[in-house]
């Protein structure tokens, strides 16, 4: 009996691995197949796989849990995975995922224009970012030009922008990051090259820790990460608050997108509508530090044009 035990265990793992592969494929094809038909039945059912942006992950996960708890949608399964905006857009456009979560417009990430046209954009929330610095810098307000000078490496000491005599340490995001793209596009107005000696971190937690602890550090964070351990900098004299973002006076913000390939099927549409419903927008969205879509008094397109 015991001689066979390792064999049994190995067979079991083998079968489990194969089964896991199989079920994943099933979910993918099912999602893709039901995309086209889009028939509305009395009782909705299906598998929704949402992949992508880690910034959007907490919201989709929480909304997914609530959605599945609703009696009407109990036959719909929502699976949520991270992996980054690029992964999300790739997988939704290849049909592997039902929904691709992204921090940026697909136009900014996907190189193939034909693929962009297939995708349908569903904007579910807004995320705003604020420049932050270490508390010892003696600066509370920076203009756009000052920020450009700092992030392009032209200004290397805080005294040149009206602060203490301290070297500037840039805590940046990797050049592929959606957060960095938003900050560069709407706060700086141009792409910046990486400065020798700058620090790059992808996780907001690490950025916050490094900016709070490193003397002379500057970085940028989503509003949900701001607290007293950091000096939150005003941008052109405007404070980064939810009201200012909604009114359109504070420009450093971006939509959180949930892309589907073509129009979503009934179950997916129900889920997207559920996220945009007041129940999620007024509670979960604000709790998790995003700004609800309904409050926005301005709109923006992929090219960055703002409409009142």
């Amino acid at each position: 009996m015991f001689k066979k035990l390792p064999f049994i265990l190995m067979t079991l793992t083998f079968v489990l691995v194969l089964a896991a592969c199989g079920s994943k494929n099933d979910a993918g094809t099912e999602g893709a197949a039901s995309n086209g038909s889009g028939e509305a039945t009395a009782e909705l059912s299906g598998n929704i796989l949402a992949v992508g942006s880690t910034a959007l992950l907490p919201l989709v996960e929480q909304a997914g849990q609530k959605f599945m708890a609703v009696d009407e949608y109990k036959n719909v399964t929502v699976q949520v995975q991270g992996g980054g905006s690029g992964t999300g857009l790739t997988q939704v456009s290849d049909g592997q995922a039902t929904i691709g979560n992204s921090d940026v417009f697909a136009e900014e990430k996907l190189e193939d224009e034909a693929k962009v046209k297939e995708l349908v954009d569903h904007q579910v929330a807004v995320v705003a970012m604020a420049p932050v610095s270490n508390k010892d810098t003696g600066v509370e307000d920076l203009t756009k030009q000052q920020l450009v000078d700092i992030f392009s490496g032209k200004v290397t000491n805080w005294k040149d922008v009206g602060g203490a005599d301290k070297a500037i340490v840039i805590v940046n995001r990797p050049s592929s990051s959606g957060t960095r793209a938003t900050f560069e596009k709407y706060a700086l107005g141009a792409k910046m090259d990486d400065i020798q000696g700058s620090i790059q971190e992808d996780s907001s937690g690490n950025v916050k820790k490094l900016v709070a602890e490193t003397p002379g550090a500057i970085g940028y964070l989503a509003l949900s990460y701001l607290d007293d351990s950091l000096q939150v900098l005003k941008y052109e004299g405007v404070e980064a608050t939810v009201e200012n973002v909604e009114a359109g006076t504070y420009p450093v913000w971006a939509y959180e997108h949930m892309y589907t390939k073509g129009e979503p099927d009934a179950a997916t549409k129900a889920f997207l509508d559920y996220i945009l419903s007041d129940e999620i927008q007024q509670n979960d969205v604000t709790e998790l530090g995003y700004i609800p879509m309904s409050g926005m008094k301005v709109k923006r397109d992929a090219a960055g044009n703002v409409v009142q």
Partner: protein
Amino acid sequence: MNNKLKPRRPLKEKHYWEEWTGRIYTSICVVFLIVVMFSIVYFVASKGLSTFFQNGISISEFLGGKTWNPTGEPAFYGALPFITGSFITTLLAALIASPLGLCAALFMTEIVPGKGKKILQPAIELLSGIPSVVYGFIGLSVIVPLLRSIFGGTGVGIAAGCLVLAVMILPTVTSIMADALSALPKGLRESSYALGATRWQTIYRVIIPTTLPALLTGVVLGMARAFGEALAVQMVIGNAPHVPTSLLESASTLTSVITLSMGNTTMGSVHNNALWSMALVLLVMTFVFVILVRLLERRNRV
């Protein structure tokens, strides 16, 4: 009679089938394993090589270019900063960990063989069970502020990275070295003592020279682990894509750039392919490490 014969025939048949099910089962597993390995190598190679063949980036630009700016206009895909970063951190980590590992191994096998091994071995093996995020976080919370208060500046950089890595590879280095030392034939040690050599003389004149190839295997395997480690290093090294001019300046390794950017880029884009090329460089380096270990093992046998 009948009752005595009956159990024997099924038993024989049973063994026959056991033999064959075992053979078939192991063969299937081996084939599966080989297929998986080859498909991984094929996948990484086809993705990594498409940077050069499809996107038209020259290999010399990729391996020798100092500028990494894949989102710029024009884009630059020079991976030299990451290759140098990986090599420097790995070598420094090995330089720190090898003497420590050797001393720990000598302590366990030569100096206090009984109790020393009982206490030190599990303690060191425990280190390998700690997840690398935890190492990274300890590095970020302890080593980076420490370096910052001693040397000034930001504290992040290659120095922090190799200190974290040194601790991470210590279990590998120590346990392989300890195995090598305890596998040494007793006779060598005893004849050295019989000639009147002290314990220290025996260690550095007899034991270390004879086991040197096996000891180096430990170092090389430790380096292979350090070369492939991503998460912990990524948290403390700073990740700026430049060739560093000092140990306390922000730098990146191949793995840290891959983990930072892979998810943010779309499959098939040049940026993504360039990251796969870096993965290919890592794969090739692992092959080199494996070959090194094989060569050392061959020398060890003679």
